[in-house]
């Protein structure tokens, strides 16, 4: 499988979840693991460009596919990805635990709706849980991300 553009061998154990493989075998700890049953959204990554829960996939299922994690959005030292920049500008995070999942979901949302309505934003982030922000600043960040992406 390709992770953030680099080819990796498949995991040895077919039981390995993609989320555990990314974190434990590849050291990509930016993908967070919260509930491990698909509710919290923290482990969201892109599979061939579309956001999916990495805790609800076996790592071997990603063989032959492209996986993008939060680490793959912007190279070290390079400008932030527009969605990351928008979360930074709008204080779309506090403790940051849920943030990688939100950012990956929003990347997918803006792919689907480059200029999302307020309703589409709410629907788009409804699968991610945040216990700090109360979501208001995250909503603002999504609209700001759309602006930045369209610039």
């Amino acid at each position, binding site marked *: 499988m390709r992770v953030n553009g680099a080819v990796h061998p498949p995991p040895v154990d077919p039981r390995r979840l993609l989320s555990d493989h990314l974190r434990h075998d590849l050291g990509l700890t930016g993908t967070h693991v919260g509930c491990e049953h698909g509710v919290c959204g923290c482990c969201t990554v892109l*599979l061939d460009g579309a956001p999916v829960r990495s805790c609800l996939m076996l790592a071997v299922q990603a063989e032959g596919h492209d996986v993008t994690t939060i680490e793959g959005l912007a190279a070290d030292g390079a400008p932030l990805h527009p969605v990351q920049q928008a979360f930074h500008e709008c204080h779309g995070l506090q403790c940051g635990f849920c943030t990688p999942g939100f950012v990956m979901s929003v990347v997918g949302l803006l792919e689907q709706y480059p200029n999302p309505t307020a309703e589409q934003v709410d629907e788009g982030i409804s699968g991610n849980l945040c216990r700090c922000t109360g979501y208001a600043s995250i909503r603002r960040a999504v609209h700001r991300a759309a602006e930045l992406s369209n610039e």
Partner: protein
Amino acid sequence: MLAGGQSLVPLLNFRLARPAHIVDINRVTGLDRIYDRDGGVAVQALARQAAVEDSDLVERVCPLLGAAVRLVAHRVIRNRGTVCGSLAHADPASELPAVLLALGGHVVARSNRGERVISADALFHGVMETALAPDELLVEAWFPAFSKPFAVIEESRRHGDFALAGVVRAADRLALFGVAPTPVLADPRDPTRGLRPSGDLEASPEFRLHLVRVLTEKAFAA
């Protein structure tokens, strides 16, 4: 059998299911089509719920299916989850089995013994129990063409969560979900007759019966 895995993998993660073997069908080619068949829409085993949601054919031929799919979890889940998987999994609180039942659709099951058609009213046997044999793969679901009037309404504690109770209306047919071991057809004038829903931390049996009455009223007022 692993397709979208959005129900099976949580069961594995919780160790509620401990299968000795899992067959992943994701690399089988030619099993992800959504196409026009016999005046309705056929959805194959690997067609993702997100693809059904975005399908012009579904919107044109069976918009009720499109509306119901949008109530299944969240878009990120629907990017992996499949319509056929929801039907084969047969969770009592799931929308799509009730849609298949309300519309009088069917599924096609295939094994090395051959292929057979199972109608919606013969498919669901109990909680997560179907008429599928262990060696059968649900290769396709078929939904008849249906335009109006329809409604699919559910009540859940959080957006995208399992429904406490839900109703699917297709013209004068009514199917309920979340209130019995399987989806059930009901009389719109007396939707709770014979129902004995279970209670849990989220809703008592009485509250579920109340929801059925209120949601049915809403569905037929639309």
